[in-house]
């Protein structure tokens, strides 16, 4: 996983609440057995009409939003199914960072596991950023070390992140390799608890 520390770039805005993972990546694209290449299907039913033409009124199709690396959206982003195809498609499309007032739990976890940063800010702060992002030349800087979001128009805000995930993202670590170092503790647990027999 590639580490994240500081990122500066343009943001795209989808000003809707409760954007669910069925919208982020519709089910017809979940049949692939690969992890890559999901970007072209991101928000598929919102981006394209039934003939496959770009819908002009969808935010990501508007010229000012092209090439953005940050996505700003409404509350409860990523609700619904646990499909990790959602962060995969966002990342593959070019979004490593999502800013919203709140995130669904499973989606948030899935982001961390893929070196993506979901940032929860206060509602008013997200609103301010959404408005500012409409201006020409607007850029946002994310600094994970100091846990700040700022822009080139004087906005700054702090965000929370669990120290565990912060360390993981800053270093780009692979979580499984770390956990495998606890093999002894897992063995001990299994010997001690002999957990309920199953299959």
């Amino acid at each position: 996983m590639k580490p994240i520390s500081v990122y500066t770039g343009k943001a795209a805005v989808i000003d809707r609440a409760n954007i669910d993972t069925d919208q982020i990546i519709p089910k017809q694209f979940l049949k692939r057995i690969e992890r890559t290449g999901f970007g072209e299907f991101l928000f598929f039913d919102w981006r394209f009409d039934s003939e496959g033409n770009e819908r002009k009124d969808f935010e990501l199709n508007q010229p000012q939003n092209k090439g953005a690396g940050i996505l700003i959206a409404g509350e409860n982003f990523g609700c619904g199914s646990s499909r990790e195809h959602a962060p995969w498609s966002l990342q593959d499309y070019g979004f490593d960072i999502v800013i919203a007032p709140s995130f669904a739990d499973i989606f948030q976890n899935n982001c961390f596991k893929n070196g993506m940063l979901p940032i929860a800010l206060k509602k008013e702060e997200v609103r301010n950023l959404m408005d500012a992002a409409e201006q020409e030349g607007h850029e946002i800087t994310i600094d994970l070390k100091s846990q700040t979001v700022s822009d080139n128009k004087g906005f700054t805000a702090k965000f929370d992140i669990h120290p565990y995930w912060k360390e993981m993202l800053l270093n780009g670590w692979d979580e499984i390799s770390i956990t495998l170092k606890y093999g002894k503790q897992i063995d001990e647990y299994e010997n001690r608890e002999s957990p309920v027999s199953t299959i």
Partner: protein
Amino acid sequence: MKKSIIEKIWDRHIVYQEENKPDLLYIDLHYIHEVTSPQAFEGLRLKGRKLRRPDKTFATMDHNVPTIERYFIKDEIARKQLSALEQNCKEFGITLADLDSPDQGIVHVIGPELGLTKPGMTIVCGDSHTSTHGAFGTIAFGIGTSEVEHVFATQTLWQTKPKTLKLEITGKLGNGVTAKDVILYVISKYGVNFGTGHIIEYCGDVIRNMSMEERMTVCNMSIEGGARAGLVSPDETTFSYLKGRKHSPKGEEFEKYVQDWKSLASDEGAMFDTEIVIDGSEISPMVSWGTNPGMASPVDGHVPNHKEDKEADKSLQRALEYMGLSEGMPITEIPVQHVFIGSCTNSRIEDLRQAAEVVKGKKVYEGVKAMIVPGSQSVKRTAEEEGLDKIFIEAGFEWRESGCSACLGMNPDIVPAGEHCASTSNRNFEGRQGSGARTHLVSPAMAAAAALHGKFVDIRELRGSRGQAELAY
């Protein structure tokens, strides 16, 4: 210290704990299916890692299997996904309920049915409705594919302790009101993210009086309220459900387990981060009218009117436009062209019995396409033994093979754009049942009634004064 059942189960599963870290939690049981596992197996192979406990892993094929001519899978990518699961299970030594297995079905239906899910366990699956298994007094939650791989390799997950939420439903339910209506009501009242960051304990007389299948329906939709998990502490209803199931402990051993399971209840006076109390008698049969499960009204109510709050109004307008409905419209005027009775929320035998009771001797309304998709092969067999299949077929329903089917329409079972579907599933998101499809979430009895009338009808009026006892067949 007084502990809730959530804390009791959690604490028993801590493998390692350190400040500033999530807890390393042991996972007792890992369910997998074809859609969210292939990349996890691939990850293991790429790194040359072993699967730690194949004996605690159980696989089924459910999400994209056809429900007619099930061995004839036209979609090549779907077929590839199914054969990938088969090969992966063989390679890593995992038990698989494939299409030939008498046990095959939706993962959240067969797990409990086979007695795999047991009180006190931690259970995960790459599927958000894993919360269903909480009905047995387990901490059960959905995970992403990276976490699936993590459990494969280590049988553990790093988890921060969630907050706890006590949701008490007191009193009694009215006639015609089911478990599905209870959970739809809760979500419509408190919103689609009231449970975010929490595990819910459902309790109160209404929950205590529910069967295991009804409790599963409630726990199933915890995720629609934002909670990754929801549970009910086990009791005699739980134990008698589990007794004699294929993977339940046998004989004296079973009794030993029961003694332990009895300790899985919240201590009197245990503290919760959030508490909600609802009077069961205020709940009516519910119908969702919008594009998330919180957008639902009582069947004798209306589609809401213009909202003062600008943001709320914007999502209301968007939802109504997608659903082709207008403000203030009575729910009973919404036309229905499709009916889907199935999914991990409502495809168990009791659900089918309730639907059959409504349908018996009647005909599906002209032009309505209605289908029944049993949750598992076992549910299907039982229904056929009871003659329910005949009742449905005679009324004009299609009687299908088990799978997820039109709940998410990954297989060919989809609802055409612009048409309304009365569905017993759990999600009414845009496009969920097909691009442009308009889903209305309801209970099995309400779905069956809609099939007969081509619109939503109040099941209480249909039954006249007949009560809940008869509704339960």
